[in-house]
């Protein structure tokens, strides 16, 4: 059983934030979802202090071996999350990680404090791909901003703080080191790569928001390299993600230094991808190009 920041997990495969809505899935699939929950921990979609409707459609666009999304973080806001979603997520058979984002330290602090003492919450993921309203800098692009944010949040909770790194930087390891100095317990990477596409007919941007984030197998080689450089630079455990669709893919991330892996876009193709990836990690794929990783994470 892998252990991650003191949390025991049944296997090393969790979900990527924003790519699995356990509440909606339970409505669709019923309690079979709980009996056969695909992830060893559940990461919520990112919540923000106030409710957000998300971006205007079109929000998604298929690309070679991947997709671009500009969903825009629709969520019920902190109050709505606590009142409506948290009780339902607490029924899941696995530990809950709450993902939060804000545009300033006080707002981030409000989010962290609100879940800091909740028994239902096992850990907090900080989505730092956001601008600081005061400095204008994207927090996750600036090591000093990241460190300062962690220093501000660290005293507020005993729960593990996971920093979700942004991949759109020259040196993600520098940001990871700053997160470590600031008191983070773990990092997760990669978030989506800045991307766009044009509608072939109109030749206008395909997404209403103009651009979005690339995910799926296409980004896997970028994710593996960033993970490799980050894992080499810090002493903290890392959650690796970006295009994982099979046990063989997951084994590459573990080879690159991941303690856990997260499945995102692949869940859209296969709702049980998490369980499948976890199972495949133990088997040799029929493709020959396969993997039998020595999984000793605990």
């Amino acid at each position, binding site marked *: 059983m892998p252990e991650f920041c003191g949390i025991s997990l049944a296997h090393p495969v969790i979900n990527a934030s924003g790519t699995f809505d356990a509440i909606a899935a339970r409505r*669709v699939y019923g309690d079979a979802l709980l009996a056969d929950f695909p992830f060893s921990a559940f990461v919520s979609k990112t919540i923000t202090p106030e409710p957000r409707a998300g971006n205007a*459609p079109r929000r998604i666009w298929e690309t070679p071996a991947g*997709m671009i999304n500009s969903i825009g973080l629709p969520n019920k806001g902190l109050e709505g999350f606590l009142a409506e979603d948290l009780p339902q997520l607490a029924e899941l058979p696995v530990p809950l990680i709450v993902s939060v984002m804000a545009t300033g330290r006080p707002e981030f602090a409000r989010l962290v404090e609100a879940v800091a003492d909740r028994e239902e919450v096992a850990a907090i993921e900080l989505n730092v791909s956001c601008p600081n309203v005061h400095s204008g800098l994207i927090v996750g692009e600036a090591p000093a901003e990241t460190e300062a944010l962690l220093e501000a949040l660290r005293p507020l909770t005993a729960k593990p703080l996971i920093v979700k790194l942004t991949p759109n930087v020259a040196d993600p390891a520098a940001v990871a080191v700053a997160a470590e100095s600031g008191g983070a317990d773990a990092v997760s990477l990669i978030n989506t790569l800045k991307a766009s596409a044009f509608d072939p007919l109109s030749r206008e941007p395909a997404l209403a928001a103009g651009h979005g984030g690339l995910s799926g197998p296409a980004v896997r080689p970028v994710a593996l390299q960033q993970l490799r450089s980050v894992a080499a630079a810090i002493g903290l455990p890392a959650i690796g993600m970006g295009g994982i669709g099979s046990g063989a893919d997951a084994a590459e991330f573990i080879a690159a230094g991941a303690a856990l892996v997260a499945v995102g876009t692949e869940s859209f193709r*296969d709702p049980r991808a998490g369980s499948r990836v976890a199972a495949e990690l133990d088997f040799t794929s029929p493709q020959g190009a396969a993997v039998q990783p020595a999984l000793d994470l605990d």
Partner: protein
Amino acid sequence: MSAPFGRRLCEVSENHSSGGYRVFSLLDREGPTPLPGQFYMLAAEDHWEQLGGRPFLPRAISVAETGPAAAGVRLDFLIEGIGPGTGRLCELAPGESVWVNGPLGNAFREPREVSAGAAGAILVGGGIGVAPLALLRRRFGERNVPVRVLLGFRDAEHSGGLDDLFACCEVRLASEDGHAGHQGYVTDLLAAMLTGDDAGSAVVYSCGPAAMLEAVRALCAAHGVACELALESPMACGYGACFGCAVPKPEGGYLRLCVDGPVIAGDRVAEVTHA
């Protein structure tokens, strides 16, 4: 009944052409019988990637008919090949397997009033949008809901499903090129019908291109007639996971078409700008 959790492989039992479209059948050994309006996320098991790394995601396809089969449920789909995903589904050969996730989404609701005197259901379909109406018509027939079917097609090359899915029953046709029925839009037929005395107790059920759905919605709103529209939007997952399928709500904000739809009451959409 819920869809089985996860995706499953189903074998193709048939595939034939139908007025420019294709109709293919899957044998589903596990799933429940789908309801009219529901859809499945489909992806060929082999050779899904066709061209430049696409399709990558599964494709949302409405179920057009269903029935019991030797060891499960037969699912019929009507497909218009417009890109790599639907193109691959069009060429499925019997014996091939398809990844199936579903049935997903909500279903058309029955008219509340089904008394003898009530106008009953008016089904308005256009192009590939006739697919979900086929199953709906049969269900209504079985439940003795009076049904009138109005179908519109661009031309003979875009009239798929007519012979296969609506063979049994009376349909009123419109075609833009006049090759069959009224020359013009199917909404011309609907407009005439909504001036009838019994229109107030009718419920309109519609699926088709955005412009047609918007005309249906506006007509029904003008005549105070209830309507249910089966919409489309880009879908990555079909089960509420991606938030990609957003459709604007009249009061602001968005609904997720895959879990809150694909069937939406006419007064729950402001204006249909995409199908």
